[in-house]
């Protein structure tokens, strides 16, 4: 098949690129190819509601609505891209089909990183897709011994969900604090204490070195061995140790794929004006935080980058220059753990200083006692994280960051 707009990746970013292409007035062909067999769905509930609700068909609640403007989009689902020739403007899918394009969007997102260990595959889980979440929740039974590798947001949310289901839960994290890089030590310490108050155990400054298997059933995990020399009993191992970008299909095109797909501020891939990237995989410069291009794995980023990428694609198709405005999105994210909602705005991870600006850490999680941490770099406020504050208050802090 020939020409038009090709979007590789059929999750939130791919969907939003298609919508935003139509919003520019583009009425040519749009083809979307995705690795999963499902139409696009919302992922944040996978580590939360989907794990602790036992309702039938959890996917039905997560599906994004498809606007009438997308009724003629061609979807190839369950068909990961396996290779591409960007000089010839073609992408090949797993079924052997080759698609050609005039403009391409890279929206293939991430795959969970796995621990470099072999064995007990059926007892080891990740949380990225609906199929992952459904498989995991079936083994999160009361009193199951669950070990979570990784104390980042996904690890901590998943731990809270497993605890809600009555499992015994231990988080193993190589750094000194869970979520320390994102939150700073002070807040990370308080949230760690909050998890401990809910009977989640931590083994910090430690990594998982090996798997101990049942001699009678080598597919069954009995424990993990840690770098401090101890063993930890485990029926279920959840690996929440970060992600890798799905870039294999782009190899051989002389692109910078060292960390996702490197783009300019228009989300155009370097020296490929007919190729854009959107979502988790796009490494773009945000002038708000200097010239260094970065990937951002926050929920709002697919929507924002898709809009920008779609405008670049539409301009390319019309032979015009792209949008002359600067793209400097303000990052936001949230995390729900044991009934508290943490809301972040700006980029706290880049801060060199942090301090409480409202409330008290000792009241964390108490109803009616909200708190907020401020984050500064070189004396300028660059982020705020709030817990339990009214949303209107967060809007005020957001306005402070401009």
């Amino acid at each position, binding site marked *: 098949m020939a020409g038009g707009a090709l979007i590789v990746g059929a999750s939130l970013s791919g969907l939003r690129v298609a919508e935003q292409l139509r919003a520019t007035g583009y009425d040519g062909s749009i083809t979307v190819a995705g690795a999963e067999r499902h139409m696009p769905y919302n992922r944040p509930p996978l580590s939360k509601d989907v794990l602790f609700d036992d309702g039938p068909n959890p996917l039905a609640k997560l599906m*994004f609505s498809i*606007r009438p403007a997308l009724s003629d989009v061609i979807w190839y689902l369950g068909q990961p891209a396996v290779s591409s020739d960007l000089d010839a403007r073609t992408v090949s899918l797993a079924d052997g089909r080759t698609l050609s394009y005039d403009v391409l969007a890279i929206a293939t997102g991430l795959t969970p990183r796995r621990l470099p260990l072999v064995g007990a595959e059926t007892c080891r889980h990740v949380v990225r897709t609906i199929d992952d979440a459904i498989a995991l929740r079936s083994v999160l039974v009361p009193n199951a011994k669950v070990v979570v590798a990784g104390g980042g947001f996904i690890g901590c949310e998943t731990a809270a969900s497993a605890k809600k289901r009555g499992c015994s839960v231990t988080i193993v994290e190589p750094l000194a604090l869970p979520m320390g890089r994102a939150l700073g030590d002070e807040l990370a310490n308080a949230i760690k204490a909050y998890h401990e108050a809910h009977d989640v155990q931590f083994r910090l400054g430690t990594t998982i070195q090996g798997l101990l298997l049942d001699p009678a059933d080598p597919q069954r995990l009995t424990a993990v061995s840690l770098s401090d020399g101890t063993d930890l009993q485990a029926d279920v191992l959840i690996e929440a140790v970060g992600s890798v970008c799905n870039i294999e299909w782009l190899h051989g095109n002389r692109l910078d794929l060292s960390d996702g797909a490197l783009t300019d501020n228009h989300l155009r891939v370097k020296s490929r004006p007919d190729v854009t990237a959107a979502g988790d995989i796009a490494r773009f410069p945000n002038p708000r935080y200097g010239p260094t291009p970065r990937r951002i794995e926050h929920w709002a980023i697919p*929507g924002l980058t898709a809009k920008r990428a779609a405008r670049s694609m539409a301009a390319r198709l019309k032979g015009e220059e792209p949008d002359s405005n600067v793209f400097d999105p303000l990052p936001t994210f*949230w995390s729900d753990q044991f009934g508290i*909602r943490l*809301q972040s705005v700006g980029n706290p991870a880049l801060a060199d200083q942090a301090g409480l600006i409202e409330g008290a850490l000792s009241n964390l999680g108490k109803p009616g006692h909200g708190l907020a941490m401020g984050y500064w770099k070189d004396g300028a406020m660059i982020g705020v994280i709030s817990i339990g504050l*009214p*949303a*209107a208050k967060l*809007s005020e802090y957001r306005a402070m960051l401009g």
Partner: protein
Amino acid sequence: MKLCVDLEKCKLHGQCIIAAPKLFGFRADGSLWWVETIDATQQKEADEAADVCPEQAIWIED
């Protein structure tokens, strides 16, 4: 057109207020208000609010 919010799903993230400040806001008590009847000129803004809702709790009815 009718702008609808499923308050069972809404978790007051406030993303709609950032995307469409003329259509959504918080009341003094922290609850969400929104413009329930919109015309075609407001649809784009309403679509943006629906897109950015993390709970996907916003939709538009003809």
